[in-house]
C-alpha cells in the first residue's frame, strides 16, 4: 500500500511524515525531473506501508514542475492524507476539494490546530467531516497529538468523484467556512509582530545581515569545534595504525603509494600523502564533514523556522538585477553547503532563464563547503586578509557575471509571488531527519569521488600523465596564471572533487599570491563532476556546455587579472 501525504507548502507535512515513518527514509528524484520527494515506510497494524511526502502544492492544476509531479504521483497512490492548515482553512480547502474530484480515498489531517486556537480560530470538526464527507482528524504534528487517531481512521478514508468548476469550488468553500469556522479577533502576538518587523526593510535588513553573520560564526564555531574535539584526536590516534600499515606494505612501492601515499619526512601527512587510507579518508571526514554538518544544522533551522522567504523579500531587489527574484537566494544559500542540492532547489525559480543564471552563478562563485575547506586550508594560513581577497573576488565575480547575464540573455525575470509562512519553532525530529539525509547524501556522493580522485592521482602520476598534462597546459597555467606546471594536475583532479586538489597544491610551496589565484581558479573554473551531472539534468547538454564555457573563460580571466593585480 502506498500513502501519499499531500497539502499546501508550509503546513507541517514533513513533520507528519517524520511522525509516521521510521529511519529508513530515502530522497529520490521523480523520474526524468530534478523534483525531489521523500519516501519512507510506516507500520500500520501489522503491515508495512510506503509513505510518500509529495512536494507541496496549492492546486492540482499545476503551475510548476513540482506541482506537475504532485499530480502525476496521485496516479499511483492508494490513500491520500491531505494535510490541511487549520489557521488557513479557506485556502487549504481548495486543494482538498480538488482531491475529492480525483476518485482517490482521502482523509484530512487538520494540522496546526493548536496554532489555530491561539489565533482565536475555532473549527467544528464534526460538521467539517460531514460537509466534506471524508474523515477529518485534528492534529498537532509537532507534539504528536492526533497522529494515532489519524492512523487508526486511515481505513475510513473515502473517495469521491465530485465535479466542480473553479467558481463552484470557491462557492462551496465559502459555504463550508461559514458553517464550520468562527474567528474571535485576537491582538497581534509577539511572533506576528516579529514576523512583520523582519520583513520591513528598516528593521528587516539589519536583522538579515545579523542573521547571516551569526550563521557563519556559528558554522565556523561548530565546524572548528568538531575538528578540535573529535576529528583531530581521532586521526592522531589513527596515525600510528596507518604507519604500521605503511611498514607492513614495505614503506614504498605501487600498492603503498595507492593505499598510504607518499611519506613526507618519513611520516604521514594526512592532507598531502595522497593515499586512499590517508588523504582519501582524511579530506572528506576531517576537513569537509564537520562544516557540512554545521552548515546544514544551521540552514535546516533557518528553513524550518520560516525565515528564508522573508530574506527573499528583502533580497528581491538585488536579485532582480542579476536576473532572478528574491527566492533565488534560497538555492544560493543551499549551494554553499553543496552545489548539488543547490541546483535541485533552483526549481523555486519559475523560468529556464532564471535557472540558467542561478546555476551558472552558483557554479562560478558559490563555493560549497568542500571548496571552502580548500580555500581555508590553502589560503587560511596567510591570515584573514588573504581570505578576504578570495571571498571578495568571488562576490564581485558573482555580481558582475549576474549583471552581464541579465543584460545579455533575452527575456525578463518574473516577479516574486510566494507565501510568507509564520514563524514556527522547528520540530527537532523533522529538522534532524533532514540533516541526517543531507549528511548521508554527502557521504554517499562525496566519498566515492574523493577516493576515485586519490586513486586517479596516483595512477596518473605513475604513468607520467600529470607531467604530460602539465606541459600541455603550461601556457595557461604558467603563462597566464603564474602557477608552476605541476598545478595543472590539481586543476585536472579538481574536475572530479575540488577538495582532493588541496593535497596536490600544498606540496608545491606556492607563494600567498599564487595560492590566492589557485584557490579562486579552482573555485570558479568548473563545478565538480556530481554537480555537472545535475546541471545536465536541469539544463540539458547545450546549456550546460554554455554555462561551463562561461565558467572556464571567466576563471582564466579572473585568475590572470588577480595574478597581475597581486603581482605574484
Amino acid at each position, binding site marked *: 500500500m502506498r500513502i501519499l501525504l499531500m497539502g499546501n507548502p508550509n503546513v507541517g507535512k514533513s513533520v507528519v511524515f517524520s511522525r509516521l515513518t521510521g529511519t529508513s527514509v530515502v530522497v529520490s528524484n521523480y523520474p526524468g525531473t530534478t523534483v525531489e520527494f521523500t519516501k519512507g515506510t510506516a507500520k500500520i497494524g501489522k503491515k508495512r506501508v510506503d509513505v510518500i511526502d509529495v512536494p507541496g502544492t496549492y492546486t492540482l492544476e499545476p503551475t510548476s514542475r513540482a506541482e506537475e509531479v504532485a499530480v502525476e504521483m496521485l496516479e499511483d497512490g492508494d490513500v491520500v492524507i491531505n494535510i490541511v492548515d487549520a489557521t488557513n482553512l479557506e485556502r487549504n480547502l481548495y486543494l482538498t476539494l480538488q482531491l475529492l474530484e480525483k476518485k482517490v480515498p482521502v482523509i484530512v489531517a487538520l494540522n496546526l490546530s493548536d496554532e489555530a486556537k491561539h489565533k482565536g*480560530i475555532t473549527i467544528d470538526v464534526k460538521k467539517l467531516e460531514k460537509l466534506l464527507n471524508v474523515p477529518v482528524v485534528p492534529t498537532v504534528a509537532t507534539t504528536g497529538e492526533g497522529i494515532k487517531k489519524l492512523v487508526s481512521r486511515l481505513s475510513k478514508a473515502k473517495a469521491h468523484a465530485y465535479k466542480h468548476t473553479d467558481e463552484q469550488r470557491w462557492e462551496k468553500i465559502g459555504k463550508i467556512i461559514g458553517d464550520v469556522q468562527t474567528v474571535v479577533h485576537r491582538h497581534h502576538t509577539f511572533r506576528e509582530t516579529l514576523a512583520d518587523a523582519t520583513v520591513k526593510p528598516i528593521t528587516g535588513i539589519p536583522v538579515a545581515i545579523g542573521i547571516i553573520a551569526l550563521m557563519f560564526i556559528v558554522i565556523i564555531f561548530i565546524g572548528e569545534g568538531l575538528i578540535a574535539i573529535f576529528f583531530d584526536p581521532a586521526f592522531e590516534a589513527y596515525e600510528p595504525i596507518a604507519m604500521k600499515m605503511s611498514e607492513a606494505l614495505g614503506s614504498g612501492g605501487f600498492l603503498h603509494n595507492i593505499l598510504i601515499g607518499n611519506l613526507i619526512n618519513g611520516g604521514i601527512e594526512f592532507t598531502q600523502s595522497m593515499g586512499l587510507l590517508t588523504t582519501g579518508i582524511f579530506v572528506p571526514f576531517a576537513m569537509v564533514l564537520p562544516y557540512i554538518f554545521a552548515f546544514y544544522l544551521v540552514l535546516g533551522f533557518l528553513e524550518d523556522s520560516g525565515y528564508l522567504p522573508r530574506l527573499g523579500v528583502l533580497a528581491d531587489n538585488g536579485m532582480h538585477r542579476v536576473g532572478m527574484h528574491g527566492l533565488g537566494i534560497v538555492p544560493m544559500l543551499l549551494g554553499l553547503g553543496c552545489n548539488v542540492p543547490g541546483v535541485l532547489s533552483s526549481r523555486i525559480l519559475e523560468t529556464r532563464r532564471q535557472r540558467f543564471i542561478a546555476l551558472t552563478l552558483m557554479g562560478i562563485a558559490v563555493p560549497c563547503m568542500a571548496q571552502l575547506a580548500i580555500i581555508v586550508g590553502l589560503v587560511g594560513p596567510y591570515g584573514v586578509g588573504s581570505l578576504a581577497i578570495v571571498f571578495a573576488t568571488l562576490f564581485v565575480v558573482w555580481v558582475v557575471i549576474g549583471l552581464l547575464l541579465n543584460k545579455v540573455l533575452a527575456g525578463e525575470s518574473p516577479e516574486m*509571488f510566494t507565501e510568507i509562512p509564520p514563524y514556527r519553532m522547528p520540530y527537532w525530529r523533522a529538522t534532524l531527519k533532514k540533516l541526517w539525509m543531507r549528511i548521508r547524501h554527502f557521504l554517499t556522493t562525496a566519498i566515492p569521488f574523493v577516493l576515485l580522485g586519490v586513486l586517479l592521482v596516483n595512477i596518473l602520476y605513475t604513468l607520467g600523465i600529470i607531467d604530460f598534462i602539465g606541459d600541455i597546459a603550461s601556457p595557461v597555467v604558467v603563462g597566464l596564471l603564474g602557477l608552476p606546471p605541476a598545478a595543472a594536475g590539481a586543476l585536472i583532479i579538481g574536475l572530479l572533487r575540488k577538495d582532493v586538489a588541496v593535497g596536490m597544491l600544498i606540496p608545491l610551496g606556492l607563494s600567498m599570491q599564487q595560492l590566492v589565484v589557485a584557490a579562486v581558479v579552482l573555485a570558479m573554473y568548473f563545478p565538480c563532476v556530481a554537480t555537472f551531472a545535475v546541471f545536465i539534468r536541469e539544463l540539458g547538454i547545450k546549456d550546460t556546455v554554455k554555462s561551463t564555457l562561461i565558467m572556464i573563460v571567466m576563471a582564466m580571466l579572473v585568475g590572470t587579472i588577480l595574478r597581475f593585480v597581486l603581482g605574484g
Partner: protein
Amino acid sequence: MRKLLVELKAGESGIVVDITGGFGFQRRLATLGIRIGKKVRMITAQPFRGPIVVGVGGGDVAIGRGMAMKVLVEVPE
C-alpha cells in the same frame, strides 16, 4: 475609496474588488488567497519598486509590484 493594492499604506486594509488579467493570473492569485471579496492588509512595501507583503486570510503573501498593480481594492473611508 478605490485604489490599487500597491497604493495601500502600511497597516491599511481593503477589500479586493477587481483583478485585471487573464483567468490563469486570477487563479494563481487565488491559490494564495487573493480573490475578489477578500480582505487584504498591507504589511510593508519594499523600496525601489520591490515586492509588497500583504496579510490575507490566515497568512502573509509577498507579491511583486507589477502583479499588485493589477489588483484593485476598496478602502472604507
